[in-house]
């Protein structure tokens, strides 16, 4: 149950979006995210988008 689903936003309607998760389309609640655009990738938990997915920092390089 507590598994995040990363998916691409393919359509936006007010507080919901249609996502494409490896070919599976699903409507999710996006009311907790700001400034969402078609083409963004989001992290979804239990039908609710909890974060936009950006890029990882190379933390290893920072600490070496």
């Amino acid at each position, binding site marked *: *149950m*507590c*598994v*995040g689903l990363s998916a691409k936003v393919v359509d936006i309607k007010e507080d919901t979006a249609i996502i494409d998760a490896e070919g599976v389309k699903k409507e999710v*609640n996006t*009311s*907790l*995210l*700001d400034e969402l655009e078609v083409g963004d990738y989001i*992290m979804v*938990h*239990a*039908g*609710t988008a*909890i*974060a936009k*997915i*950006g*890029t*990882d*920092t*190379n*933390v*290893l*390089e920072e*600490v*070496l």
Partner: protein
Amino acid sequence: MIEKAKETILNYKGAPLRIMEVCGTHTHEIFRLGIRSLLPPQVNLISGPGCPVCVTAVDYIDKAIYLAKKGCCICTFGDLIRVPGSDTSLAGARAEGGEIKTVYAPSDAVKYAQENPDKQVVFLAVGFETTVPAVCLAVEEARRKNIENFSILAAHKTMPAAYQALKGSADVFIYPGHVNAITGNAVCQRLREEGVSGVVAGFTPQELLMAFSVILTLYPKGEPFFKNCYTSVVKEEGNIPAQKLINKVMEPCDSLWRGLGIIKNSGLKLREEYALYDAEKKYSVPDIKGTPNPACKCADILMGKCKPPQCPLFGKACTPLKPVGACMVSGEGACSAYYQYGEKI
């Protein structure tokens, strides 16, 4: 980056250390990706209590079964259905005629309640900070639409107080990425100030290798550390709209964790103004005290005191097909991971 991270892990010559992966999905991904085989022998991985199904107490399952037997329609995430209660599971209650419905999201339960006004629909609201926003949105939706036959049986858990209870169980913690996506990193920074080291990690091979290589680089330096190794998803401040929503709908309460007992302020319950949606109040659920199977070692496993193969039931009386303990039922449970990926002691 991957090659450098792998090289850092393989060349670790430092002191022995215990790393606890708090999150059940981390446990499974670390097994599944073969990362354990890369780790030097002095690195001991411990599976923590970050599987919401696993830490859900027997009492809670018994209460859900009580409601099913009273005629409520129980809507739940699928992996809770086979978790044993004191006498039976929700699957057993279903076999006896109870209506137990699997849903993907809490909002599906609201929709089902709206479409079936003659039914009393109860959603089993378990999970950590990752799941709480979806439940709060469902409660708000029910309130907005005046859907009065929907309620939740809440047993949400929050991590900050649990981290305090786990102090000393490991030298370094791998914090659950998606919890931090909601809460932000302040609690981990505070733990560092208290001398507890950790990193927040993602779930892909690259992200996990990064997290382990950062741990094995910083641990030998002897200073407490915290690093966010999942910056693609976890922002320092977390998800502020989600935090505000949780604070509006729910308030902290003491909570019973399987294995850890009652931890003060480690749970969330509906605020008084949402009492109409609180199944315990609505149906006057009695204070049921559950009795877990005494031979089951789930409690010790969740605290990192023993590993699944050290349980006398593991792989014998307790298998994924016939689970005795919650850690074998859930796809995120440590026993399930050890069974599935074949690790022995």
